[in-house]
């Protein structure tokens, strides 16, 4: 049971090759009454592109992200679908078939993640240096101590964090700095894909802008693909190449940002776009008007003919 028939898909935004292909992925939570968190999701991620994944809380975007990296924990299970990673070197990797050591090697070196709210994502009792080091040690066991240190310094500088912070503990850093450290850590092995789950939601807008600028800049420099997950659609409109909109576990629209903004096809997309008060236009119009221009029938996953 796939929903590609109802999926409103626009033509591919870029002509670059695909780096990740997700086909018909379904994730089910085996609770008392099994819940399908992700239903038949399909998308293609291209090299170096920023793909936004938008939707309200509970729509399944985080579940999808975790499933891609096989980080989903029981009672969640992948009920069907494929996830194929297309290596720059030319061969394909069936992510769902990887086991143990191969999976561990794949993780972070090809695909890394920045989690929601780095508040807790860093080990509170070890230093930043130690946490960067164990990543490098695990994947590049032949690096010398000096090389490890040099690389750690390099990634921190890249994200705008003072290298002296290597000796600090996570609780000594501010929220913004912690998030930057997480991003630096995600870049350590120069992966081909970075999945970022609400990386800036917990931060104030000024810091948010700084970090977003960093991400886009790094992408330009290092040419990795980014899957950017957030509920903040306007933000995605600014930075992503393409945007996928999720509703109740299904991807209901997938298009370039410009086309999504100008000609949203799915009623839910339209509703989402209309839900953000604008900085322009008449003051109070959004709340006062009482007429919701985007209001329509209850959002379904069907696209009107």
């Amino acid at each position, binding site marked *: 049971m796939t929903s590609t028939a109802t999926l409103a898909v626009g033509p591919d935004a870029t002509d670059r090759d695909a780096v990740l292909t997700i086909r018909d992925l379904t994730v089910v939570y*085996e609770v*008392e009454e099994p*819940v399908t*968190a992700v239903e038949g999701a399909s998308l293609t991620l291209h090299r170096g592109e920023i793909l936004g994944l938008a939707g309200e809380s509970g729509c399944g975007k985080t579940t999808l992200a975790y499933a891609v990296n096989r980080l989903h924990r*029981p*009672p969640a*299970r992948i009920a069907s679908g494929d996830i194929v990673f297309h290596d720059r070197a030319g061969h394909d990797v069936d992510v769902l078939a*990887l086991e143990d050591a191969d999976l561990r090697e794949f993780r972070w070196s090809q695909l890394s993640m920045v989690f929601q709210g780095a508040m807790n994502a860093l080990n509170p009792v070890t230093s930043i240096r130690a946490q960067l080091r164990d990543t490098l040690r695990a994947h590049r066991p032949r690096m010398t101590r000096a090389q490890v240190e040099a690389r750690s310094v390099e990634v921190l500088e890249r994200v705008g964090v003072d290298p002296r912070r290597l000796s600090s503990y996570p609780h000594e850093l501010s929220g913004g700095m912690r998030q930057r450290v997480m991003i630096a850590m995600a870049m350590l092995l120069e992966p081909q894909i970075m999945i970022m789950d609400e990386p800036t939601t917990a931060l104030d807008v000024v810091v948010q802008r700084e970090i977003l600028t960093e991400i886009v800049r790094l992408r330009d420099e290092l040419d990795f693909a980014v899957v950017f997950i957030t509920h903040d659609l306007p933000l995605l409109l600014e930075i992503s190449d393409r945007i996928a909109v999720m509703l109740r576990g299904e991807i209901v629209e997938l298009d370039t940002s410009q086309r999504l903004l100008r000609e949203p096809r799915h009623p839910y997309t339209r509703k989402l776009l209309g839900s953000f008060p604008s900085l322009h236009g008449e003051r109070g119009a959004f709340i006062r008007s009482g007429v919701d221009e985007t209001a329509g029938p209850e959002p379904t996953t069907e696209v009107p003919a």
Partner: protein
Amino acid sequence: MTHLSTDNGPTVGSAADEKLAPVASSADRPRAGWRAMLPTMTPWLALGLFLVISIALFGTIGPYLVGDPGQIRDIGLTAPSGEFVLGTTQTGQDVFAQLAHATRGSLQIGLLVGLIATALSCFFGIYGAYRGGLTDEAFSLLSNVMLVIPGLPLVIVISGFVPREARGLWTIAVVLAITSWAGSARVLRAQTLSVRSRDYVAAARVAGERSWRVIVVEILPNLLPVIASQFVFAVIAAILGEAGLAFIGLGASNASTLGTMLFFAQNGFALGMGAWWWFAPPGLLIALFGMGLSLINFSIDEIINPKLKNVRAHRKRARKAIRLEREVRRADRRTAGRSEAGAQEVASR
């Protein structure tokens, strides 16, 4: 003295990662009606209740049903037989009868001390935390100091200075209580502080509810499970503590408890003479009672931490999910004819 700490920290988490589950998580208000206060029945809880209730019955009704524990006969130390279920002591006394009376004594003192100690810890823990400021600091310091000074040596010293005649049940009870309230007080204080800072308490205060109403209506109901749990710990500790005191001859001089039974058994060289029926049952009874109470405590933990509920069911679901996923993957590999070699190949940079 029991080693089960009064605060085991966050207890068992469920197998599901709460963050990912799309199921709506329970609201921050734990008060979902009085029904939610009752633990769910599990085999462990059933066993615990069985142990506690049967031993309690034995202690309360038993003494009326058995013979005279103090009657001395000249048959000396005898092994269990038809006439004497648990044999006799070296003065010919019926061990089983003694056991029933001793159980009652231990239960009495356990309850008494448990109540006094819990009352003390409630006062120092809850009241101090609620008032805040200097009161809180002072009470907290007092609790910590009392906690760090070793209990039994203190009890021994205090009991040692009291002449034998004055060592009644109440004296011992008071001494045990004042040396054991500190741990619970600390736990209650932590819990009160956490409840006090929750949003619904702040909301009640802002809405103008009077202090006492806030305590009784908002704070206390959430503390009840913790208080219950601490009371149970206090009873276990009291029974063990009294047993220890009695064993070394410092127990209540007029009471007959499981501890005094062990004292007499030790002095009667029960061990040396191999009279296991004399020294084994009292201790075993204490251990079983303590274990029953601990099991009940685990169930109370479920109320305090709802994540604990249905851990079994969670594990089962988790296993099912893993199994199903593996099957799907195996089927994929077979039907799609995917090359294993290709799938395993990951070029290292």
